[in-house]
């Protein structure tokens, strides 16, 4: 190597190095300045943005669903309760092998095919990373068994909650109704933000009508979570406001007695306190167990309920529309008196049939031999059809309609249970509008004895009877007496919308009709005299036997020969005690046959229970 190459200019190199060091330092300074600029951007200029992101990361808002209000009967007996219950939930995204997990779980807890099917359905609808319930209402034993093996099932959890329970089961099903899981139809009519966290909603009956009162309002919990979503602590808690309790007018004991009295027959019983419209008993049979619906009924059981010939899901008291039969007679008679068409002492001769002037057709009386000469009281007591054919014809359909409408026939009573039907009070206009046919006088005759087009619900009958008992003082029937704010002792009575009273022409007319009804049960020839015998209080009643199908002229009704489904409906209305009525009852027994033999004794049992029970 040439010597000059190795000769180093130390001074030059030292200076060069110094120069380069400064340049390197400047280079480093520039990069650090860029870094500091970046930090100022992140920590000062965009600070708010990142604070928000950081809070979004760690803070989650979880809804706290309110506890649903409880439902009590008039004596404080619980009809709808919230029971602690455990449900098994699976977060599918956290499960590696779903089949193996389900098979494993099936060894610990009872999992029916129905549960698996429902789980699959719910899973399809549930957003990702949200738990899907597999089983509801685990037994303590099942909870314990799972707890031991819990570590083997990531993504599977037992969640404690409250589950609606109806301790009286079918007894209160048609009045109270039930709650069920919120479905897509419900989602359309509720404000989802107020229902976040809530899993159930009132589906039928009072649970539906009073949903807003019972539900309460949702609370929130701000929680801090880690990256895995595990809750570490609660930051802010806005407690939910539990729903209000409902105190009903129903008397569970009376309800039970009425239910027992009806036995296994299909029908309905409605008992009302005429003084205020309190519904004391509201029975529709057969009924169903509302507890089946709370956490989803399986299709097989549901199908069986739906296809049952006796229609247990059908609320007969509210929606059953029956011809009132002879139970309508007192109202028709009162109309005749009040409208001045007949008088207390006017007589009609009953030969056992009636013919329209100039017509050959015979309208038959239930008693083929006839009742002879009858006045209004006798006609009611013995349920003479001919008297009422004659009276109805004299009144004409227009006045008949006008007067009966005052009692609420043909319109909904407005009871606070949803789904009520209105029955049918026919008129000329109605017939023209619906069938485009004129009204025929013959139709007025049969309307006068509660047959033909006339349809009433048991609730309407009971309500009209209560109005009659109170001399036209109408009260809207209702099932909820008062509400109670959670934690309060005091009850807030529910205001019942007033209904205008019936304007009375002559109070004596009402006395006459009620006297006739008293004769029905406690007179010598009354149709239900057997029922009135031995009663410890005077009362008024009226039997009814409603034809399910029309008999041909001269044809004799033979209950034994007819299939049960074609047998007459048995009806009875009553109120008691006579002077100061405390209870009005309507009983309808489907295909029961004669009103006096079947429906009347049931009404007597209900009244006895209510009026004679020792005051508690």
């Amino acid at each position, binding site marked *: 190597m040439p010597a000059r190459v190795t000769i180093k*200019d130390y001074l030059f190199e030292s200076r*060069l*190095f110094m120069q*380069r*060091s400064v340049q390197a*330092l400047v280079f*480093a300074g520039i990069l650090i300045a860029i870094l500091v600029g970046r930090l100022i951007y992140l920590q000062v200029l965009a600070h708010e943005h*990142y604070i928000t992101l950081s809070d979004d990361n*760690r803070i989650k808002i979880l809804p706290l669903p309110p506890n649903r209000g409880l439902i009590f009967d008039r004596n404080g007996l619980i009809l709808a309760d919230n029971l602690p219950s455990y449900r098994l939930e699976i977060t599918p995204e956290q499960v590696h092998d779903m089949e193996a997990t389900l098979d494993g779980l099936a060894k610990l807890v009872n999992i029916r095919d129905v549960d698996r099917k429902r789980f699959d359905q719910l899973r399809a609808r549930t957003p990702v990373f949200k738990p899907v319930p597999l089983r509801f209402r685990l037994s303590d034993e099942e909870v314990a068994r799972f707890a031991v093996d819990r570590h083997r099932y990531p993504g599977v959890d037992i969640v404690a909650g409250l589950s609606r329970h109806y301790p009286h089961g079918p007894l209160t099903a048609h009045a109270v109704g039930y709650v069920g899981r919120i479905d897509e139809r419900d989602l359309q009519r509720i404000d989802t933000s107020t229902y976040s966290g809530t899993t159930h909603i009132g589906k039928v009956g009072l649970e539906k009508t009073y949903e807003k009162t019972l539900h309460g309002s949702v609370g929130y919990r701000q929680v801090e979570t880690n990256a895995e979503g595990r809750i570490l602590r609660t930051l802010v808690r806005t407690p939910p406001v539990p729903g209000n309790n409902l105190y009903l007018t129903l008397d569970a004991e009376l309800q039970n007695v009425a239910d027992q009295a009806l036995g296994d027959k299909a029908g309905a019983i409605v008992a009302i306190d005429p003084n205020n419209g309190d519904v004391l008993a509201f029975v529709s049979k057969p009924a169903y167990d509302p507890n089946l619906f709370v956490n989803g009924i399986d299709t097989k059981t549901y199908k069986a309920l739906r296809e049952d010939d006796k229609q247990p899901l059908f609320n007969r008291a509210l929606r059953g529309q029956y011809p009132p039969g002879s139970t309508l007679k007192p109202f028709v008679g009162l109309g005749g008196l009040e409208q001045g068409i007949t008088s207390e002492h006017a007589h009609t001769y009953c030969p056992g049939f009636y013919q329209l002037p100039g017509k050959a057709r015979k309208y038959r009386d239930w008693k083929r031999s006839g009742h002879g000469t009858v006045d209004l009281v006798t006609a009611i007591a013995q349920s003479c059809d001919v008297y009422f054919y004659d009276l109805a014809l004299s009144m004409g359909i227009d006045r008949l309609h006008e007067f009966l409408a005052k009692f609420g026939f043909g319109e909904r009573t407005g009871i606070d249970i949803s789904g009520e039907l209105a029955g049918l009070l026919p008129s000329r206009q109605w017939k023209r509008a619906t069938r485009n046919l004129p009204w025929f006088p013959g139709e007025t005759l049969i309307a006068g004895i509660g047959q033909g087009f006339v349809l009433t619900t048991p609730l309407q009958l009971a309500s009209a009877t209560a109005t009659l008992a109170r001399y036209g003082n109408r009260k809207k029937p209702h099932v909820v007496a008062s509400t109670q704010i959670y934690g309060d002792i005091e009850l807030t009575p529910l205001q019942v919308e007033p209904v205008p009273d019936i304007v009375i022409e002559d109070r004596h007319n009402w006395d006459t009709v009620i006297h006739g009804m008293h004769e029905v049960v406690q007179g010598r020839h009354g149709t239900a005299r057997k029922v009135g015998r031995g009663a410890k209080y005077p009362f008024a009643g009226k039997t009814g036997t409603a034809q399910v199908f029309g008999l041909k002229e001269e044809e004799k009704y033979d209950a034994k020969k007819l299939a049960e489904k074609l047998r007459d409906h048995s009806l009875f209305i009553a109120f008691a005690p006579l002077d100061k009525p405390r209870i009005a009852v309507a009983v309808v027994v489907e295909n029961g046959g004669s009103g006096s033999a079947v429906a009347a004794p049931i009404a007597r049992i209900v009244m006895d229970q209510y009026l004679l029970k020792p005051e508690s």
Partner: protein
Amino acid sequence: MSTLLDSHREDASRRDWQHILHLDAALLFGLVALSTLGLFVLYSSAGGDENLLIRQIIRLGLAFGTMSIIAQLRPQWLQRWTPWLYSIGLALLVAVLAVGDIGKGAQRWLDLGFVRFQPSEMMKLAVPMMVAWYLSDKRLPPTGRRLLIAGALIIVPVMLIARQPDLGTSLLIGSAGFFALFLAGLSWRLLGGLTLLAAAGAPLLWHFMHDYQRQRVITFLDPEQDPLGAGYHIIQSKIAIGSGGLFGKGWLNGTQAHLEFLPERSTDFIFAVLGEEFGLVGIGVLLLIYSFIIFRSLYIATQAQDTFGRLLGGSLAMTFFIYIIVNTGMVTGLLPVVGLPLPMVSYGGTSMVTLMAGFGILMSIHTHRKLLPT
């Protein structure tokens, strides 16, 4: 700071304790301050895990010990052994590629039976030493054939390490060699040419990259495209730093770190924990300490009495800077994710020992000067 340096210059004339122990007080002060701050941040990021803290303290002790021992070695002795160190290192790198253990998906470790050894760590020192050794008796600035040879001394180990693959370390070693050349007076014209060449060669580099490396670059360019996957690291560390604000959320109060949103919070992403809990002010303190150490190291290099000491010292100072800027640039989202720790703060042993060995060399250079009468 200038007074501190000025006073030191006066001290250098006396044979004080610094020259007896061959330690530099200013550098030592900076490193101790840095390690102390680092331990505080690590304690928080580890969620109060004292065992982890103790292990880090033991490592720090080991690192400071290594530094002290290296500082005793005379620069001339180091210079003499440089070619051997470099050759052994190169041989081991080849061995690693042939028979090395696979850890975290990359071949970096060599199992010597009693200890697992990472040859690339050794090369962090050996490469700048080799370049300084090679240029020590050559005329500066290096040109032509000498530059090519020096370049080859750098490129070969860099390529070998990149093949492992360990992008972070190869980048660090490449820049250590580069700064040795730069400080030796590499011409700006050549530098400009090389930059253009690198830009043109980028697509070629892309072709040779591993999938995960490509993914990192893609993620760097657009972290939001995969917020739960590869982009998660950057997004969460930006949130941590940004939400820290000016003064931070307070020590042990970082929600991003303590609620486990921030990944690798004790190792590569510990800078984000500092930013979250101590804010811009805390980061400012750290950057000041770093700047002081870099400045002091460069100053030591300028005071060195031969080319070997100057080039090696300057290169070590700038490598330390590259460490810092690559890590902080990555955590703040300025640079792609490259697996480099934050020097002296991140949890982890090997790189810390190597770094401190480098500071030991700097101290050796500074305290073994032949004092000329003034």
